[in-house]
């Protein structure tokens, strides 16, 4: 039972949406996580709460807010279209935006925990060896945070693949453009005699999730070992 051409298209679209949502949100999530882990400033609690908002709000609300802000007549959407020609409304890019925002707090949380667990004395040691702030960040902080970054990427990737409410509210359910895996499954369950197709797509979703979990587990284990300072072959 190989996937049909239509199923391949849905799968490809879902992966494209998830890939871009993760890729674009990662640098931003690292910056936000670093700020939350290391800086103190007035309004930090509010900032923290705002970052976590997508985790607690109903996804439909997030989608609706995106529609208001990033729709073609919304304040941000109109501006982006006028100056950069970027359109989110009813495009796969909009699906990626919705998925990225829903996964953002998960990514920030994992990366932040990783930053907080780093021994800051190592950063002080790096500075005595001539490394400036950027140098310390790139050669010590970031490599040591790698396990958390990988975990954050997986969580956000999985969240993106499963995103439903915000996506359907913001960019609707357009075949080939915004109909990702969950939206397609939903559509089939609403169609007479769509049971078999819904089941097949669900199976694909299960396999995809398992594969993502497996890959991230291997990567995290390898990175954690590296961060602990063990030899690659486990020699003691």
């Amino acid at each position, binding site marked *: 039972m190989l996937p049909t051409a239509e199923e391949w298209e849905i799968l490809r679209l879902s992966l494209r949406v998830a890939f871009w949502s993760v890729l674009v949100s990662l640098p931003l999530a690292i910056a936000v996580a670093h700020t939350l882990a290391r800086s103190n400033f007035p309004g930090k609690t509010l900032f923290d709460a705002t970052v976590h908002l997508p985790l607690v709000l109903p996804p439909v609300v997030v989608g609706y807010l995106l529609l208001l802000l990033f729709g073609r007549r919304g304040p941000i959407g109109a501006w982006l279209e006028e100056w950069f020609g970027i359109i989110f409304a009813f495009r796969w890019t909009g699906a990626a935006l919705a998925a990225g925002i829903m996964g953002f707090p998960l990514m920030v949380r994992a990366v932040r925990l990783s930053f907080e667990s780093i*021994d800051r*004395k*190592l950063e*002080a*040691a*790096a*500075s*005595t*060896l*001539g*490394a*400036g702030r950027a*140098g310390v960040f790139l*050669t*010590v902080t970031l*490599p*040591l945070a*790698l396990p958390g970054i990988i975990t954050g990427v997986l969580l956000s990737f999985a969240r993106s693949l499963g995103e439903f409410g915000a996506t359907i509210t913001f960019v609707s359910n357009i075949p080939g453009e915004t109909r990702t895996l969950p939206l397609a499954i939903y559509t089939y369950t609403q169609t007479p005699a769509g049971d078999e197709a819904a089941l097949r797509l669900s199976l694909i979703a299960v396999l995809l999730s398992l594969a993502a979990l497996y890959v991230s587990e291997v990567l995290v284990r390898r990175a954690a070992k*590296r*961060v*602990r*300072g*063990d*030899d*690659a072959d486990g*020699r*003691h």
Partner: protein
Amino acid sequence: MTLTVDIERHLGAFHLKAAFEAGDGITALFGRSGAGKTSVVNAIAGILRPERGRITIEGEPVFDSGRGIDVPTPRRRIGYVFQEGRLFPHLNVRQNLRYAGFFSRATPQSEFAHVVELLGLKDLLDRRPGNLSGGEKQRVAIGRALLSSPRLLLLDEPLASLDPHRKNEVLQYIELMRDEIKIPIVYVSHAVEEVVRLADTVVLVSAGEVAAIGAAEEVLGRPDLSTSAFEGGAVIDARVVEQDMQYDLATLAFDGGTLTVTNVDALIGEPVRVRIRARDVSIALERPQRISIQNVLGGRIAAVGDERSGVVDVSIGVGATILRSRITARAARQLGLAPGLAVYALVKAVSLDRRGAGTV
């Protein structure tokens, strides 16, 4: 080269106020845990910012509150060896050693090879810090600091987390480094045996302030400082004149006589420094017969200290050397000890083990 420090800083209820100068060789910042020694070296490195004061290296200010100078840590060119090593766990030994090279603090390949050989790191280069012993880690940390082309090296209790065997191993490498590489070193320690063995100059730190400063023999021998930070005693510069292999004993000659001590890791002719704790020295009015004590040194009482909780410190001149003896006030009275009295100072050979002696 000189380092001058004159700084002040409040740390909670603790007030740090330190002023001293350090020249070539090893300057020990010596004092109890919590006396503020680490804060001083952190200020020198630029990790801790003093509220007021001035720090100069070779006359160049790296910190001067009056002139608003505060050179950032990476540009101070000070090597820092931390108590816990602080090797980068995600890099192997070679990458740790070369780390400073990424940041235009590179040293020539020849010096890399020299440091690797000096500290015996050749077999460790491809290992990762997680699999090194404590002593190996500290050797790598010393090498890493040396390879950042420092003007000054700070060592903050580099032996504190090591067992006695490893301590001795790393001490030997530090001695080697001191002799081979002419970089001034500030060595922080609360262990008197390390200070005796390594220091040229001692800065005694007590409760955030410099209590005394001077040559090692001088500061470590001062009886008035004995109760505050460490146990009193005398530090004697001597030379090995005989090794008795059968009994594992060495005879040391000093200005005032000879001392027999248990095995010292030094060859005949080598200079060594021994520290004799005041409580290990007994006093007799006549030369005792049939006694196990191997060192009986004739001398004259130079001074009898004041009684403090039933104890007095007596200074005995043996040749040009002053020994300290701590005895009960009752014993001092019974013997009628007074300046000028001829006495014999008794020192057990086993009280001078290798922990108390080191090559100079």
